[in-house]
């Protein structure tokens, strides 16, 4: 298994800016806060950084979706780069980090700064997500094209109904229930209470979950993540540099990036799973470890149902078995001893940092830096998984090689 080149890379540092529902701060400033924190965390300086990767690169729409691109950061920190890459066409948000691993293993760079920056909270202001929808101005002249051609004419402009359609199909085929799915947001809220940077920390009960307003059945408000402002950064370094680093390295044991089904939210071959099915299978084909070796899982929960499909895809339960696996919530609880899930509160309660929050939290836990939310027992193996629908990228991380 030593031939898989991601094993030549480590996560050497991680950092995060302030995070808030609406900070009204300069998004590049937030980005640089996270980047400089990650560089310092690794014991490096900006002179050491010779690569930059980001997702999705500069974008002005939807509002607040991207706080900075590669060249913004390169110029702001006067970096000299051997390799760089930013873009939205990638295996999920963490595809950018996986790209960095490949670049480091290929010798194009030694220390790659990877970041994701959002300010959707401020950008949406008080108008909420509906303000970001195409055609929300209500004019008659806008015409839909691309994938939106097949959803906008049916008043389905958001991933909420797209994911709801998948969830309903899963409920139908496997008998999954809202009470089972609801364990994901309940667990997230419980963990968020121990995370000083989390957005929502008030206790949530199953009654709260079942009685909150519906968005798109079977998904309610609490099945949807919360837009926020904030930036996250990690440093991917070559394993040969670990002696120069400030902290014990977190090894990249395996990655998964596959997309084998149609790249579509409604034409994918099996709507009870997602591209994460194939990315996960690929990941397990690149390591001798198995799901039983994993001590904690940080899994994309832009909608609760996406995390449910990641649990199945990564093999923590069988396809269609996530409902019983989630029943009662004990399997995913911090102190479960089975599979602590989204130990920072996920995007559902800690904020929509869009993929990178999961990698940051996996590293935090593997470094033993979780403070009050630290998983007991010195976890050694974790997974960070990001993306939903046709987007999926996953990293298997270990403290030892």
């Amino acid at each position, binding site marked *: 298994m030593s031939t898989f080149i991601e094993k030549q890379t480590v996560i050497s540092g991680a950092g995060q800016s302030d995070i808030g529902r609406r900070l009204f701060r300069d998004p590049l400033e937030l980005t640089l806060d996270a980047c400089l924190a990650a560089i310092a965390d690794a014991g490096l300086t900006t002179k050491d950084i010779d690569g930059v990767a980001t997702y999705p690169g500069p974008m002005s729409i939807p509002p607040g979706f991207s706080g900075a691109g590669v060249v913004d950061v390169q110029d702001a920190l006067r970096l000299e780069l051997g390799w760089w890459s930013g873009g939205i066409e990638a295996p999920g948000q963490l595809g950018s980090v996986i790209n960095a691993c490949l670049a480091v293993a290929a010798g194009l760079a030694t220390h790659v700064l990877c970041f994701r920056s959002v300010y959707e909270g401020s950008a949406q202001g008080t108008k909420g997500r509906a303000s970001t929808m195409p055609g929300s101005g209500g004019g008659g002249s806008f015409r839909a094209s691309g994938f939106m051609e097949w959803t906008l004419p049916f008043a389905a402009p958001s991933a909420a109904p797209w994911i709801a*359609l998948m969830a309903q199909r899963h409920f139908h085929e496997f008998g999954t229930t809202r009470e089972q799915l609801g364990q994901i947001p309940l667990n997230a809220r419980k963990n968020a209470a121990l995370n000083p940077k989390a957005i929502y920390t008030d206790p949530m009960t199953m009654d709260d979950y079942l009685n909150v307003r519906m968005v798109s059945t079977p998904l309610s408000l609490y099945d949807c993540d919360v837009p926020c402002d904030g930036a996250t950064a990690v440093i991917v370094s070559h394993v040969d540099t670990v002696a120069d680093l400030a902290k014990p390295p977190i090894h990249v044991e395996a990655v998964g990036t596959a997309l084998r089904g149609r790249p579509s939210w409604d034409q994918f071959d099996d709507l009870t799973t997602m591209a994460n099915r194939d990315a996960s299978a690929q990941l397990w084909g690149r390591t001798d470890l198995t799901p039983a070796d994993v001590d904690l899982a940080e899994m994309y929960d832009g909608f609760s149902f996406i995390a449910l499909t990641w649990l199945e895809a990564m093999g923590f339960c069988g396809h269609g078995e996530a409902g019983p696996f989630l029943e009662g919530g004990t399997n995913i609880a911090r102190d479960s001893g089975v599979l602590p899930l989204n130990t920072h509160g996920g995007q559902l309660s800690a904020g929509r940092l869009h993929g990178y929050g999961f990698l940051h939290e996996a590293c935090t836990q593997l470094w033993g830096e979780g403070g009050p939310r630290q998983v007991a027992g010195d976890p050694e193996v974790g997974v960070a998984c990001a993306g939903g629908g046709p987007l999926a990228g996953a990293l298997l991380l270990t403290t030892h090689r």
Partner: protein
Amino acid sequence: MADSPAPTADLPFRILPALTDLNREFWTAGTRGELRFLRCNACGYYNHPPTAVCPVCHSKDLAPSTVSGRATLHTYTINHQAWMPGPELPYVIGIVDIPEQADLRLTTNIVNCAHDDLVIGMPMRVTFEIHADGEDVIAIPLFEPDRTSA
């Protein structure tokens, strides 16, 4: 084209598709009561969303082909969120399976069906909502329960 039918009465606001040479028949054939997909003349594959090259045999000999208009409900969601101007809330978004080909699906709205009567797998049939916008008359394919097929 024959005389276009009058736009459907009491239309909800809809964002209409940008018409192209590839998609025009899909979005306008409903004005004649037909549901049409681009189909490969070489291998028979229905190619949706339409592209110029058949994804199966790579032939460029594709032409619109009319299907029965029947479908089965693959999944649905009752949408309560006002994302945009549109049908009266709550409205039903569905994905239907088109029986002419195993992987042929459409996202659509399910209409003329009480929410309590929605059942995955139920037989559906197409019905069109006609919108006029400038030069274009566009027929949005919606689906309703097919009570004739029982």
